[in-house]
């Protein structure tokens, strides 16, 4: 798990509320994860770990699906319409997904 903190612009934790999650790296969906869109967002099931995650936001689903092609998680968030103000919440959500191996940094399995 990466513990690199993004630099805070004004010392407030805002910009690094995603402590441990690097928004500026490229990420990808783990190849063993099945994504099933639902009305409320999506269900993610990891066939290797047998863990199940509920994504309770359609925007978060868009972010997750955009990860593979986007140059960074931040770019994927922007693509999904996430505002600067909303970034920390999405970063934290992505951190949860990274911690359960639903997503992983590109360049590693």
């Amino acid at each position, binding site marked *: 798990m990466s513990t690199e903190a993004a630099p*805070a612009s004004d010392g*407030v*934790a*805002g910009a*690094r*509320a*995603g*402590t*441990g999650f690097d928004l500026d790296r490229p990420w990808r969906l783990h190849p063993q994860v099945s994504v099933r869109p639902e009305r409320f*967002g999506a269900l993610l*099931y990891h066939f290797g770990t*047998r*863990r*199940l*995650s*509920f*994504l*309770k*936001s359609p925007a*978060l689903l868009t972010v997750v699906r955009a990860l593979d092609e986007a140059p960074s998680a931040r770019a994927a968030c922007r693509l999904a319409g996430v505002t600067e*103000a*909303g970034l*920390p*919440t*999405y970063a*934290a*959500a992505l*951190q*949860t*997904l990274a911690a*359960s191996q639903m997503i992983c940094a590109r360049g590693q399995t």
Partner: protein
Amino acid sequence: MNERVATADITAPDQAAETELAEADLLVEEVSIDGMCGVY
């Protein structure tokens, strides 16, 4: 969505992480694949 952030306290990283995870719970909820009733 308003920005709600944990004040980063470098001496208590666990608290910050926990609060951040609490935020993430809004968008991501994990349930055990065995956590659904109706499977014997």
